[in-house]
């Protein structure tokens, strides 16, 4: 099970969405689809049509910058970061 860590800006938008979620997925794309099944609409908050990642959503798999097609290992840690500068 991959360990997803979600940004604090995302969780208030969905009922009972925790900051950490464990999902069984082979890729980041599949992990997001699993989230979408449980919290409909969450994909749109992370991805644009395509889907492609939104420009200011950064993903890291085991501390390496990742994309939707990045594979996940059994115990991968996935950090989803809302990344933008400014006040």
């Amino acid at each position: 099970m991959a360990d997803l860590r979600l940004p604090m800006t995302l969780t208030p938008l969905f009922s009972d969405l925790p900051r950490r979620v464990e999902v069984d997925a082979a890729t980041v794309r599949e992990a997001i689809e699993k989230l979408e099944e449980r919290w409909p609409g969450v994909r749109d908050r992370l991805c644009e049509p395509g889907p492609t990642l939104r420009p200011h959503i950064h993903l890291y798999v085991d501390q390496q910058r990742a994309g939707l097609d990045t594979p996940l290992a059994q115990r991968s840690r996935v950090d989803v970061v809302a990344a933008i500068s400014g006040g």
Partner: protein
Amino acid sequence: MLLLVGTRKGFFLVEADDRRGNWKLRGPLCESWPVYHAVFDPLSGTIYAACASDWHGAAVWRSGDLGETWTLSSEGLAYGAEDARKVSKLSTLALIDGRVLAGAEAPGIFESRDGGESWSLLTTLAGQPGCEEWDDPANQPPGHLGVSAIMPDGEDTSHFWAIVQGVGLFETSDGGATWAPRNRGLRADWPRPHEEVGFCVHRLVRSPADPRRMYQQNHVGVHRSDDGGHSWTEITDGLPSEFGFAAAVHPHDADSFYVIPLDPGHARCMPDGQAAVWRTRDGGESWRRLDRGLPQRHAHLGVLRGAMAIDRRDVPGVYFGTSTGQLFASADEGESWSEIASYLPPVWSVEVAVIE
């Protein structure tokens, strides 16, 4: 009386008693998302807020209990995976007979027929002169609003107007299937490749007392139409600046109209650090400066295109919010003003609603 205030960092509700006093502020709501515009639907009792988060994209928030609880949706608010255009923000909302319309950047209008749960593309104003330029993703710089305003007819549900920022005003009489430019007589101080478009309409208002009478604050000048937008006459003379964003028309007198002139340069603030609203009582023949109660020293205030509103009382109240977070109200048609909220985030929109 309820003011709906969209800001760069969330949505605020400002409630008054029946005498338009004792204002109480609630917010920030909508998780402090940037809120470009919000409207209240008296038919359903729903507040809709058009938003765009830098992180999580564009969506419409809605509340059926006057802001106590909120949900958001962007289902259908997209041009499609194969389309180079993206919905970078939702700039404006309009209510037409139970439907909700949302103006977007890249320019387009989306429609919801289920109270904001889902959306579908209504129009991109395809085929209008200049659309190939405004549809080019390279021409979507940050800050552009796309369809910056939608103005319903109020009677005919298939009849409304839309502003495409930096392009001009358009009218549809068939629910958005076809459009016609309505910019004849407007001024532009820049080259325009197309005769009928290339005008910078900041704010459009239409008189409830005379539907043929419209006004607009343009990038260059204030303009009046006496024929429902088919032709325009400039009425800038007498104002301290041709530039401004906000505008409001009196609900009962078609000749009474308000603007907030701004320095057209980098500042885009009220001239000389002295805050004022300007009003005409004769359709733009003459103007009067209204500043009682407004700050007159070091008041470098800007007011954006959606940030002034007027209510429909017999003696209407006028309201505006500033880019530095002040909210001012007048209960006497602009004769005198008071500051009813301070220290808000930059105000992008103000609408007024009467809750029965």
